[in-house]
Structures are given as structure tokens and as C-alpha cells.
């Protein structure tokens, strides 16, 4: 089968984040049945699968929102544990959830620094929560983050997020995730609700992430976007791996087949 040659561990680049044998049960539901997954720096790894395949569960396990029942986590060559979102953030793993979680009443720079506002030096007698925000520093940082991702359509970092387009919001959410010293960025259906032009904008941002040596996990239903943006595609089905393909070696039909029927030959790839 074509899947075998390009599966995990063959011609793949050295992984940055790697999980082995992840199991997750919700009561009687066995959502993940020993999933392996890896992503390297400077690549976009697409995670695809039909509804209920376990994509979201796997993403939440990696992000620390769910704790895996079994499984090993490796960052570069170090074994790590991820039991909470805080652990994941410490390791540089950031997630952009589908609902983005931006504050529409605040401007772009406030959203990008949310929870980590720079405060002016001095004022040491006050607790940190009550020191004056250095909003100029905040704007400088925001401008840098926006420039790094080349979000050209954004007029000003002082515009309210409530007035931005869906693509711009997605870009802001990604910029926020990247801004915090992250090396792994998980994107959950980033183009699901967007039009053509906005999708293009977001895909450009994702490409910029790859170029800046981030490890990008791209979760999507939209195979056209996946084939445009991804370097490798990992297919899940019924909570287990089907296979991982290099985009060069496969075609949408094959991926759709793998998503819906699995592989004809069960030769270990599904483990």
C-alpha cells in the first residue's frame, strides 16, 4: 500500500513533538486507542479524520485540556508529561481553538498581550496587577507580532477586534498563540467559517508559521486547504491511526478513502 512507505518514522524529518500509544477513555467510550502522532519543526502536519475519529480529543490531549489515560510524550529527545494547559504552555505548545476566544471589546494589541500585559518599571510598591500598563510597549509588541505574520490587511493594532473580519481575527488568535514563545501551534479548523479571500489570508499566515520554524498541527475537514498547506497528512479513524502520508505521495481520493474506510491491508499502520 502507498501508505506504508511514507508512514511515520521513514523518510520523515526528525520530530519535535511526538506522542506514542495515547489512550483516552470517556466513561465507556474509548476515544483514542493507542494513537501515535508526531510533528517536526518547520512543517505543517495535517490531522484529518471523519467526525468522531478522535482529532479533537488528540488535540486536547496534546494541549493538556484532557489528560491521556496512557501514552508517552516526547519533546525533541526528552520525555515530558502534559497534565494541564499550563504544562503544555510551559513546553511551548499553544492551541488556537475554533472559537478563537478573543475579547471583541478590546483592541488588537490588548488582545495580543491579554493576561501578560507589560507594566511600567518602577511602582514597585504596588502589586503587579495594579501597576500601570505600558501600553506603548504593548503596541510595539503587537505590531511586531503582526508584522512577523505579515497580516497586511490589518490597518492598526489599535482597532477593536469586534470590527475585524473573520480572517483577521483568526490571524490575531494565531499571533497571540505564537507570541508566547511557542514552538508547537495547534490550529483547530482555522478556515471553517471563512470565505475564499479570508481563507487565503489565514493559509498565508500558516505558511509564515512554517517558515519561522514552528511545528504546526493543522486540523481540518477541508482537504483542498490541507493539500495546499500541509507537508504531511495524518489520518485518524475510530480513535486509531490509519497512516501518515507525505502530501507529495498521495492524492485527495486516497485520503478520503482512508478517512472513511481505512486501509484495505491492515499491516501495522493502524496500530
Amino acid at each position, binding site marked *: 500500500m502507498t501508505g506504508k512507505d511514507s508512514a511515520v518514522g521513514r523518510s520523515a524529518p526528525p520530530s519535535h513533538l511526538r506522542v506514542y500509544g495515547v489512550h483516552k477513555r470517556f466513561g465507556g467510550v474509548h476515544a483514542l486507542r493507542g494513537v501515535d502522532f508526531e510533528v517536526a519543526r518547520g512543517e505543517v502536519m495535517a490531522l484529518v479524520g471523519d467526525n468522531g475519529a478522535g482529532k479533537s480529543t488528540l488535540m486536547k490531549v496534546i494541549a493538556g485540556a484532557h489528560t491521556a489515560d496512557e501514552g508517552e510524550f516526547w519533546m525533541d529527545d526528552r520525555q515530558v508529561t502534559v497534565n494541564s494547559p499550563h504544562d503544555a504552555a510551559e513546553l511551548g505548545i499553544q492551541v488556537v481553538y475554533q472559537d478563537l476566544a478573543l475579547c471583541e471589546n478590546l483592541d488588537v494589541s490588548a488582545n495580543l498581550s491579554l493576561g501578560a500585559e507589560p507594566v511600567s518599571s518602577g511602582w514597585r510598591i504596588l502589586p*503587579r496587577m495594579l501597576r500601570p500598563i505600558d501600553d506603548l510597549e504593548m503596541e510595539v509588541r503587537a505590531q511586531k507580532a503582526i508584522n512577523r505574520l505579515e497580516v497586511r490587511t490589518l490597518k492598526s493594532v489599535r482597532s477593536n477586534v469586534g470590527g475585524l473580519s473573520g480572517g483577521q481575527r483568526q490571524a490575531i488568535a494565531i499571533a497571540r498563540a505564537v507570541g508566547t514563545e511557542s514552538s508547537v501551534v495547534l490550529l483547530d479548523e482555522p478556515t471553517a467559517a471563512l470565505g475564499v479571500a479570508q481563507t487565503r489570508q489565514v493559509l498565508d499566515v500558516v505558511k509564515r508559521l512554517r517558515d519561522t520554524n514552528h511545528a504546526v498541527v493543522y486540523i481540518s475537514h477541508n482537504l483542498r486547504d490541507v493539500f495546499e498547506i500541509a507537508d504531511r497528512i495524518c489520518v485518524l479513524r475510530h480513535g486509531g491511526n490509519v497512516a501518515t502520508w507525505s502530501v507529495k505521495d498521495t492524492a485527495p481520493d486516497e485520503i478520503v478513502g482512508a478517512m472513511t474506510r481505512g486501509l484495505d491491508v491492515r499491516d501495522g499502520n493502524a496500530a
Partner: protein
Amino acid sequence: MLPETNRTIVDRLRELRQTRFGAFVPVLLALAAIWFYFGVAVPLWDFWSDPDATGIRFIFLSPRNIYNLFMQSAVIATLAVGITIVLLLGDIDLSAAATAGVCAALLGVLVLAGVPGWLACLIVMGVGIVMGAAQGLLVAYVGIPSFVVTLAGLLGYQGLMQKILPTGNLNIGDPFVRSIARVLIPDFWGLVLATALVAFVTALALRRQARRKARGLELDSGLAIWGQVAFFAVLVYAAVITMNSYRSLPLMILLLVALTALVGWVTTSTPFGRSIFAVGGNAESARRVGMNVKRIRVAAFGIVGLMAAIGGIFGASRFGSVSYTAFAGGSLLLESIGAAVIGGTSLFGGRGSVWNAILGALVIGSLGNGLDLSGASAADKLMFSGAILILAVAIDSISRPAGGSPR
């Protein structure tokens, strides 16, 4: 944004509300309209319709009336500033006036028992914080909606006030407490203060602009900066000069402005204030970036309690007495919530400003004062207040950014 030609009035209103300064405009317009009506239109009408009138009498806009108006509105404004904080979170506090009543009653009992005035004020402020924070704990950690918690608080604290003041009335003669409303800043020093304030604001604006330039950030237009400074200067001088031409600037108004400036600074310029806006805008987002949403809620309710206690002290000082009807049992609660909402603070959380609450309190105060002067009945006053409130909330709803879900 939309092309110039396609913008409707509603779009323009929305854009206006987006800017920090523009949020003042609707409430200022409302205030101007009310002042014009009572101050100019009604006297002119009376003059023309009455053949025996000897001259036009501008009672409403006389310095004496403006002075009284400010003093009348001060207690409402103090509570409204506090309530604005919880409204920013998307919560509500129905117990603020009852808290103020309990604090004022406690103050009266304490000074009667011989506790020095300043100490009694501090104790009462502490009690206010505890009363507010206790409700905040129930909202944040037990998860009861703030409407229910503070409704229970309203009833409970009303009862508590009656327990403290079985007679329902207590005179306060303590010189320290009375001095808050009685002490006047001498005319000269009032003007010096105003000048210093304007100079401070100007220096701040210029320094900010210089630093923006130095760091290569986009600059505000010079017109906007100088316009804001000039507007601020006109407002400050007009207020001080008007007060001076009747008596002088009262200490209570100065304290109110200083308190509002402090609370305003905390809400707009500190990580704590930013977290209040973030929780009000999108609590899930605030939680994900690691903010302690529950603690922020408790702190906000603590601030309302503090502001309510201070409002109670102001009220006790101004009336020289504490009575059940002046606080817990009267219209103070609805007037202060109305003031916050008329000021443009959204009931859905995340948008608003404490300065607008002061303007809103002036709107409510002016309406009551003007209707009193023109001999309207209590029934008319209630109906007018209701209409103004509906108008304010309607403006809020229309000017909310399109597509934004009501949070």
C-alpha cells in the same frame, strides 16, 4: 470599514462609540438637551406665555441650582461608579444602595457611641468591602447569578439597616463627617487646582505623543489631542467658576472626582482593570490566558461595596442624618443603576467607563431637579426617568458593533 458614501447614521454612531472619547458623546448630548430644555426653553416659554412676567428667570441654570445639582448627584454618582465596575464584568449589583444604607447607619451608631469620625469612616469602608466581597464570593465560587445574589443582598441589607436603626432615623452631628459636605475649597485655590489639573492633563497628552513618536507608533492627530485638552479645560473651568460664583468648590465634589479618577485609572490602565474588561468581553478568553476569573469577580464586588460605603458616608454628611428612606428604601438604587446605564455602560459587560457614570448621574439628577423646579409631580418624575432610561439602553443596543453577540 465601509466606504464613506454607504455609511448610515447608525454606522457613524457605532464608529463613534468605538473611540474612547466618542463614548462620552451620547450622554453629553442627553445632558445638553435636558439642560437646554429646563434651563432655556422652559423659562422662555413661561416668559412668553405669561403677560405679567417682569423678566426671564433662569432658575435652573443659576449657579445656586447647579451647585445643588452637583451635590444632589454626588451620592448617586458614587454608587454609579461602583456599579459600573460590576456592569463591566457583565454582572449587576442590586444591593449597592442597601449596602450604602447599612454603612451610613453603622456610621451614625459608631459616632454616637463616641468613635472618632475618621475612624468610623474607615471602619464603615471596611464593612462595605466585606459586604460586597461576600456577595462576590457567592457569585464567583458558588456560581449563583449575580442578579439573585444581590437581590437577596438587597432584602437582607435592608433588614440589617432596620435592625441597626430601629427608629429609622438618626442625626449625625460629628464634625468630621459633616465637614465632608460642608468644607469648601476657597475660590482662589479652586482655580489653582483647576489650572494644575489642566496643565497635568496637557503635559500627559504631550508626553504620550512624544513617546509614541520616539517608538515609531502611529500618532494621534494633533487636532484630536488639542481638542480633547481644550474640551477638558472648558469643562473643568466652567464647573469651578460656576461653583465659585455661588459658594465655592465643595470638598465632596473634589473627593468624588478624585475617587472616580482613581477608579477610572485602575480600570483602564492596570492589568487588573484590563482583566475586568476581558472577563466582561469574553470570560472564556480570560480564563484561557490564565486570569483568575473568580478572584477578579470577588474583587469587583468588593470595590462596589467600598464605593457604596463611601456613598453612604457622603449621604450621611450631606443630609446630616441617616434615614431608611434616603438610602435602602428609596429610589437611590434605581437611580444609580440608571446613571451607570445612561452613561453608556453596557449591561452585557465589557464596555463602559466610570466617567460616563458621573455624567449619567448628572442626567438623572438634572431631570429630577428640573422637574421639581417646574412643579412636576412625583409621578411625572418617575415616568420621565423611565423614558430616559429606555432611551439610553436603546442607544446602547443600536450602537453595539454589528455581528457582536450580546455577551
